[in-house]
């Protein structure tokens, strides 16, 4: 539909393109005149741009409340090539607007937080250009993410998909000269990009298959034709959905492509919060949710998705138990929660998945930002402590290591409160938001498959356990290092978004309380055949009980007197022994990949470069050159300068010609 037509549906719908263009405008302003604006100016521009996108999303939501089917706004024709017609269109329906709200809402809060957080970075490095670059990249990310969720065909979705992958790379490697050996961050960014690429390859194949079988890439047309094509060629749909799953495992960090997410923690904490907790990684979940019509045709693919998600959820949760870096725990926790989401959209209970996506955005962002606040405080304390002693070294001190923290409850009370709320919400304690969303997931699982239900429940138990472990290690007991002794609370710019997110994490359950089912009625206009979420009381009670049990166990192991003292080994080490070592080393997955995939690939590359490229190809080309040269050298002997020699040659030629004439 054109702009006028959609305005006739509802006047607010015309504003849809602004969700993309406002962040673009923000980044252009920062890019061009950012130097003159100063830190506060740059941050304000970026936050206003994202905030503006949020306001537009709210307006779109208001419009959708009245015109619930939504509409499609076509901006421009992008590709028209034979049968393929792809246009840049905005799909305004409840699913996409929900994603827009989450992305821009959480995004705005994180922008505000970043102004305070990145301030110290500039002070340490004295490179104001970096501040500007950070916000440019953040706005670029928001723009691309909006393209992803607002597109009405698979190709525009892919454009956004790739774009957020790019921004992820740029932002992970933001401090590109830091990290192990001065290159560790760049390596982590590269790893994220490459692993994502493998997933993108799967998605691309799915796109090709889609076009081949359906003749179009438009959502509406494909979902209409889905039953017909499924009847005609069921193998095709299966292939499409499985390749799409490959893309999802890449972007949403599921088995086997999750390895980039923990390394991505090398980026600044706001980046981890926005991209790797709340938004980019949920793109995979959104993709499956959007393509429900395809997945419903192939129950086998649905099963695969479900099991991938469930196994990831459990696997990542086990690793989180053994980690010592505060952000790594949260990273594996993200992978685990994404596993929950992927499981449930694989089952077909899309509403539960989107609900969990929303609440996870709240409490995971909160936890990450809170961790950032903790890290800031500890760094401040470290600088304070060592400034007094006259030292200035930062080398061996890792502000993110939980073993160096402790007792921060008294030093940073606000951070403690919000972190506690976020953690409890994630663990699934009623009546916080996480309880309701997780409960819906478990309820759906209990109906679909008992095995998956057991796996998810175990993952939930482990979630509660590692949340408790983290809370106790960081905030309770006595400080285990000078840094945590002198830690200070963070400034308002940092804590204000935390408070807002905490409120959302607490009250966000209201979105889909059993009985009111707000989200469900909201979403059923965009999703086919959603099973109504049920509130199964036994399941809810079991999950609550499991969560409390997990927290209690964590308190018993880590919190009882004597509380985990400085220098002591982890209390879990002795009972679990070898198992704990495996957990600490993340089941050696990275090492496995390196040995099985990376090293052979590198040796193939060496071989191709050395033996094949230099040896054969260059050899042929150079060989031809030297062949010509030696040939010429031989021929040059005929030019000996003697006239009689030349005369001989001429006569020889004459004789040849006459021979030919004679024999003709």
């Amino acid at each position, binding site marked *: 539909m054109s702009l006028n037509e959609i305005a006739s549906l509802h006047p607010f719908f015309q504003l849809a393109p602004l969700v993309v263009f406002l962040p673009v405008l923000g980044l252009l302003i920062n890019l061009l005149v950012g130097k003159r604006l100063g830190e506060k100016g740059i941050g304000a521009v970026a936050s206003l741009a994202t905030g503006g996108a949020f306001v537009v999303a709210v307006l779109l939501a208001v419009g959708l409340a009245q015109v619930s089917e939504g509409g499609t706004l076509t901006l421009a024709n992008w590709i028209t090539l034979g049968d393929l017609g792809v246009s840049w269109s905005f799909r305004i329906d409840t699913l996409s607007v929900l994603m827009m709200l989450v992305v821009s809402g959480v995004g705005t809060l994180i922008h505000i937080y970043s102004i305070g957080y990145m301030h110290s970075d500039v002070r340490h490095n004295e490179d104001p250009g970096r501040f500007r670059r950070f916000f440019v990249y953040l706005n670029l990310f928001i723009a691309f993410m909006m393209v992803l969720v607002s597109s009405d065909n698979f190709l525009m979705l892919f454009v956004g998909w790739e774009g957020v992958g790019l921004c992820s790379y740029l932002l992970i490697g933001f401090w590109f000269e830091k990290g192990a050996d001065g290159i560790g961050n760049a390596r982590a960014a590269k790893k994220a990009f490459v692993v994502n690429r493998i997933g993108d390859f799967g998605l691309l194949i799915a796109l090709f298959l889609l076009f081949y079988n359906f003749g179009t890439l438009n959502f509406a047309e494909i979902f209409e034709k889905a039953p017909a094509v499924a009847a005609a060629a069921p193998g095709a749909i299966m292939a499409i959905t499985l390749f799409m799953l490959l893309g999802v495992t890449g972007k949403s960090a599921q088995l086997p492509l999750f390895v980039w997410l923990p390394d991505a923690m090398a980026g600044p904490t706001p980046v981890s919060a926005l991209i790797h907790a709340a938004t980019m990684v949920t793109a995979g979940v959104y993709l499956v949710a959007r393509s429900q019509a395809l997945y419903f045709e192939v129950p086998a693919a649905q099963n695969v998705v479900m099991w991938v998600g469930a196994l990831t959820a459990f696997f990542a949760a086990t690793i989180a138990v053994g980690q010592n870096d505060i952000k790594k725990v949260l990273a594996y926790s993200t992978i685990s929660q994404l596993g929950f989401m992927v499981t449930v959209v694989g089952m077909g209970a899309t509403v539960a998945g989107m609900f969990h996506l929303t609440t996870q955005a709240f409490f995971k962002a909160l936890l990450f930002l809170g961790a950032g606040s903790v890290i800031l405080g500890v760094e401040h304390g470290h600088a304070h402590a060592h400034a007094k002693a006259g030292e200035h070294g930062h080398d061996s001190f890792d502000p993110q290591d939980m073993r160096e923290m402790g007792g921060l409850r008294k030093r940073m009370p606000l951070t403690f409160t919000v972190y506690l709320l976020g953690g409890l919400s994630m663990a699934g304690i009623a009546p916080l938001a996480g309880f309701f969303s997780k409960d819906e997931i478990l309820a759906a699982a209990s109906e679909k498959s008992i095995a998956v239900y057991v796996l998810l429940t175990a993952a939930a138990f482990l979630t509660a356990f590692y949340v408790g472990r983290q809370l106790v290690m960081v905030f309770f007991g006595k400080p285990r290092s000078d840094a945590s002794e002198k830690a200070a609370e963070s400034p308002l710019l940092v804590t204000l978004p935390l408070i807002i997110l905490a409120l959302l994490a607490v009250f966000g359950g209201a979105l889909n309380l059993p009985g009111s089912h707000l989200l469900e009625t909201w979403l059923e206009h965009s999703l086919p055949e959603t099973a109504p979420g049920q509130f199964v009381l036994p399941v809810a009670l079991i999950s609550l009980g499991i969560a409390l049990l997990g927290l209690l166990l964590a308190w018993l192991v880590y919190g009882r007197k004597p509380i985990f003292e400085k220098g002591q080994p982890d209390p879990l080490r002795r009972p679990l022994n070898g198992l704990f070592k495996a957990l600490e080393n993340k089941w050696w997955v990275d090492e496995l990949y390196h040995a099985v995939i990376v090293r052979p690939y590198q040796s193939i590359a060496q071989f191709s470069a050395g033996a094949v490229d230099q040896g054969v190809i260059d050899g042929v080309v150079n060989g031809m050159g030297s062949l010509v040269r030696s040939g010429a050298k031989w021929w040059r002997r005929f030019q000996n300068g*003697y006239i009689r020699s030349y005369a*001989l040659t001429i*006569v*020889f030629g004459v*004789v040849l010609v*006459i*021979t030919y*004439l*004679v024999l003709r």
Partner: protein
Amino acid sequence: MSLGLIFMYSALALVVVVSGIGLITSRNAIYAALFLVLNFITVALLYIVLGAPFIALAQVTVYAGSIMVLFLFVIMLLGAEQLPIAEPLRGQRVLGILLAAAFLAEMVLFVLLRGAPTVAGQAVSPEFSTPTTIGMLLFERYLLPFEMTAGVLLAATVGAIFMTRQPRPDRKGALPAVPEEGKE
């Protein structure tokens, strides 16, 4: 054909061949020039036999009379030296003789295979090639080549003069000197 005719033609042919051989084998350049003169005169006799008296006389006057005289002048001018017998170029002698023999063989083959006319032509009448008839043909049909030949002779004259003039004392206008053997 009568025996006398055969005898005459054989004698003339013999002289031609012998003088040719003498030309290419005598070490002294003057002897070679003289052999060539003999050759020319004998060929002129053959022309007469073939009914081309004007050409025969032209042969004697132009070829034997002026060209050979020119040759002899230059030979004497350059003090024709006796060059050493040994052939510095490897294989030149062998290949040369080989190629000449091959050429000869091929020509004979050509004649035999393609069948050159072996019968004699009719005898020509005396009015066949008088200066009048030649002149008529020359100035009617071949006027353009005739004039062009004049141009060629003019060019040759100018060229010969230009190439052999003495350089003026200030070295301007001299031909560029040929570089010595050493610097290549």
